């Protein structure tokens, strides 16, 4: 089962969670196994039926001040009941002072307590993003991912068909490489798939006849990108004379990755065909479609309107 340890939460970088351990370090290896967060709410009033112990428990002003406003004996009872659930960890926001009774029961049950200076909403947004990324379904794919005019283009095709050469051409035209040959894919939200390169091979390419090159060193920081959302899939195939390829572009094809359907373009490869130009134009066309302009459909409508008008004027003309 995927999980994130409390230690990883407290050491998370890049999300500005600002979490510091303030109690019960024995629980640092506890495992969060549910990416959703639990805003404790009524859980600290004694109503614990819906507390999911595998979720990070968030304590804000509401929870802490509610607890502080109870009589001492009631605080004791509530904390005893709550911490007996053995929740995975507690996070206190806004650097609020932690009541002694809370600390005591956390220590008693080895429930780690982390604290941040962030307000509850901000913490929950950032922590959700962090956990979603860590729990995301992932897969590897053989292909090249580039950022072409801001469009995340994944180039697929058999080994040796020219994916890397096409990518190199695009880099020379000022586009940015995310990863060559191996792309690690993961969900970023239900309808988005993000790709990146494996740590050890990223920014490297193998160009037949030259060997391994490092794109970042050779072309600079502007030629690479760490991570990019996939928006368009281009599949390179060997040109076969008896196969009819798309000539008009009225039909939309899709390619499914991690349950997300992405627009697909199948490009037949033939000597003398500059693939990078076609990929670049495909990216421009994708941007136009995002703006609501679909060239093939627009042309078709214009054509049909003209044909209808001409047919009417034909009918009006005397024999």
């Amino acid at each position, binding site marked *: 089962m995927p999980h994130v340890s409390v230690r990883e939460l407290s050491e998370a970088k890049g999300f500005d969670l600002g979490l510091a351990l303030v109690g019960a370090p024995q629980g640092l290896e506890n495992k969060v196994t549910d990416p959703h967060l639990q805003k404790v709410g009524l859980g600290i009033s004694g109503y614990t039926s819906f507390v999911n112990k595998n979720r990070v428990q968030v304590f804000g002003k509401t929870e802490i001040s509610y607890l502080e406003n109870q009589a001492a004996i009631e605080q004791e009872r509530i904390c005893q009941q709550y911490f007996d659930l053995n929740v995975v960890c507690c996070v206190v926001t806004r650097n609020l002072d932690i009541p002694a009774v809370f600390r005591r029961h956390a220590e008693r049950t080895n429930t780690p307590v982390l604290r941040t200076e962030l307000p509850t909403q901000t913490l929950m947004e950032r922590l959700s993003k962090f956990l979603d990324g860590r729990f995301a379904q992932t897969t*590897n794919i*053989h292909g090249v991912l580039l950022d072409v005019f801001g469009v995340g283009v994944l180039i697929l095709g058999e*080994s*040796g068909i020219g994916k890397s050469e096409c990518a190199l051409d695009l880099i020379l035209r000022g586009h940015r490489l995310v990863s*060559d*040959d*191996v792309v690690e894919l993961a969900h970023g939200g239900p309808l988005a798939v993000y790709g990146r390169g*494996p740590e*050890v*091979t990223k920014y*490297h*390419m*193998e160009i037949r006849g030259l060997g*391994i090159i490092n794109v970042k060193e050779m072309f600079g920081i502007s030629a690479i990108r760490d991570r990019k959302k996939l928006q368009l899939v281009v599949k390179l195939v060997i040109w076969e004379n008896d196969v009819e390829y798309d000539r008009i572009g009225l039909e939309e094809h899709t390619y499914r990755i991690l349950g997300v359907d992405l627009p697909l373009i199948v490009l037949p490869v033939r000597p003398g065909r500059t693939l990078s130009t076609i990929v670049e134009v495909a990216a421009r066309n994708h941007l136009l479609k995002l703006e609501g302009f679909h060239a093939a459909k627009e042309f078709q409508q214009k054509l049909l309107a003209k044909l209808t008008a001409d047919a009417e004027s034909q009918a009006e003309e005397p024999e």
Partner: protein
Amino acid sequence: MVVEKNLTMLNRAGMHLRPASKIVSALRDLECEVEITFDGRMANAKSIISLTQLLAPQHSVLGVTATGPDARRAMMALERLFREKFGEE
């Protein structure tokens, strides 16, 4: 045709550029897809970059799956390369 086998990295340096390139060369003209998995990572055996990101050290056991008309020939070629430590120590 699908052929599956576990192969062990016997050479001391593990899956670095030279073994990877030998694997790619051995498979280049064969009509098949070969997938190699190790430690949750997956590689296309016809790509050097892809093979190196497996980070497979000496003694690691790799899962190899060959699919296609030449799958058996591919597996024989790979078994030989692995057995002979890719011509290394």
